[in-house]
């Protein structure tokens, strides 16, 4: 039934979905509220590791799918709490302080993942995660997992779309464009940042748990800053202030490399081991620089509040 589907293509799609999900959440943080988060890999990685360690190391009295559900839930909560903590740390700092705070958090997660060998397997990693169902061939299981993840990322997209149409989103934009003025209107901008980071980081943690199931292996090399920058490069190329920015941008960046070039470009096989992955990161970096210099609002352009407000209200 799934003969047309290459196993690597499935993981290519899955990777694109993950980065879109992260990009959508970063959009809320950096696009709307303009709070710097360079520690996306930390929140995502915390979810991945909390999920993996709980799933593998704890002797649960019940099996899947409950084992998955409870572990994924705890991973989500852990990342959400971490988001709350980091937001508290950086809420009253300037952008430089926020950079160091978030980057520092991600580094702490990476160091813990590497040093707590008994729990995480350290640098060599740890295997043993499974799909919370068994439908027969591995390919079918993976395909279904991609579908489930698509639903999750789709739900995140709908949520982001809703945020743009809600008083909450308006508050986030106000925090991002003029924080002192928002405060003079009685808004607790600190509370707004805490709420924002708690919810978005929790969802990043859930995406991390989804990753754990798909790759069935914990490895510190997967939770480096490259994942943060991939999400950021996609989001900024697409349009950092737009709902669909992350979707469009990530398709053009991660999608281009991990699907189009990986499977359809007639390139020598030996390039794929090192040259292409290295070129991928270099291109992401160049894209960040060039887009921000020459088209800072990305492919989709400015946030279009007037049009949106006209659509959802009839004050005229």
């Amino acid at each position, binding site marked *: 039934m799934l003969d047309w589907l290459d196993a690597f293509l499935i993981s290519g799609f899955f990777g694109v979905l993950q980065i879109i999900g992260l990009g959508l959440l970063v959009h809320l943080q950096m696009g709307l509220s303009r709070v710097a988060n360079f520690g996306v890999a930390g929140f995502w990685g915390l979810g991945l590791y909390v999920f993996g360690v709980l799933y593998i190391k704890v002797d649960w009295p019940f099996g899947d799918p409950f084992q998955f559900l409870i572990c994924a839930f705890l991973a989500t909560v852990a990342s959400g709490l971490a988001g709350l903590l980091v937001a508290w740390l950086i809420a009253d700092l300037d952008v430089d302080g926020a950079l160091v705070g978030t980057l520092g958090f991600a580094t702490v997660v990476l160091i813990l993942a590497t040093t707590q060998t008994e729990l995480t397997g350290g640098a060599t990693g740890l295997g043993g995660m499974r799909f919370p169902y068994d439908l027969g061939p591995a390919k079918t299981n993976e395909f279904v997992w991609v579908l489930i993840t698509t639903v999750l990322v789709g739900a995140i997209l709908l949520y982001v779309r809703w945020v743009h*149409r809600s*008083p909450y989103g*308006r508050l986030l934009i106000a925090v991002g464009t003029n924080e002192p*003025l928002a405060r003079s209107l*009685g808004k607790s901008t600190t509370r707004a940042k805490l709420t*924002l980071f708690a919810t978005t980081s929790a969802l990043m943690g859930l995406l991390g748990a989804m990753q754990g199931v798909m790759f069935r292996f914990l490895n510190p090399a997967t939770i480096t800053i490259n994942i943060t920058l991939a999400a950021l490069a996609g989001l900024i190329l697409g349009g950092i*202030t737009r709902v669909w920015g992350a979707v469009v941008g990530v398709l053009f960046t991660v999608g281009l490399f991990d699907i189009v070039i990986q499977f359809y470009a007639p390139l020598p096989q030996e390039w794929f081991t090192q040259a292409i992955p290295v070129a991928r990161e270099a291109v992401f970096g160049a894209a960040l620089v060039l887009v921000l210099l020459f088209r800072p609002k990305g492919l989709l352009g400015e946030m279009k509040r007037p049009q949106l*407000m006209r659509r959802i209200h009839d*004050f005229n």
Partner: protein
Amino acid sequence: MTSTEHGRSEIRIRGAKKSFSGRVVVDVDDLVLGDAAVEGLLGPNGAGKTTLMRMIMHSIPLDEGTVTLHKADGSTITLSELPAHQMMSHGVVKSTQVISDFDQLTILDSMLLAVAGSRHESPLRWSAEKELAAEYEDEIRHYLDYFGFTDPNAIAGSAGEKKLLDIVRCLLLKPEVLLLDEPTAGLPEDVTQNVMSVIRDLGEQGTSVVIVEHDLDVIWQLCDEVTFMAEGRVLMKSDPETIRGDSTVVEKYLGAGHG
């Protein structure tokens, strides 16, 4: 504490000092603002009026002294101990002197932002926008019409429009003490008249309005009481006629020919 005599909230500033780079900008011994319906704050440039207002809002911290709010119901709140964002919940609201807006937000956005409470702004309250719009529709429409905003779905463009929007945001917050820092600067004549009549009405309805204004006509027409400041100090506080005739005020600020 008994309630204020006049049934309005008032602000009391005691021993308040603020210096920037060693220069004393504000040094107010004891001043009550809000014992008249509409009160003017007058003084030459650099008198410390704007700084004093910002100190009341605690958007800049005091070096010394306290600012307290005495509410109409008799309760007292020390504003200078609270973070800036809590002033509004105690009914103290200020418009900004420098033109200040949310770049990405439309006029309607700004108004909805002002009226939204934290219950609307929950990250998980699905129908909040509808509820909010329905709840405040009449009020918002009233101000849109009254001040003649042509397109509520546009982003405020001109400086005058931004200034006006700033005042409207303040009005929507239903203040008990309203501080206005040069509210009519840059507004066209007819709009200035509208703003002045709104201020008058607010004062009559029990809000204590304090205005910093360089347009003296506005001060003389609106204010029941005027405080005169120079070099960071309060020199006198009296009714407009007395201030107008005072020799120190004329010499320091009004100059000859203003009388």
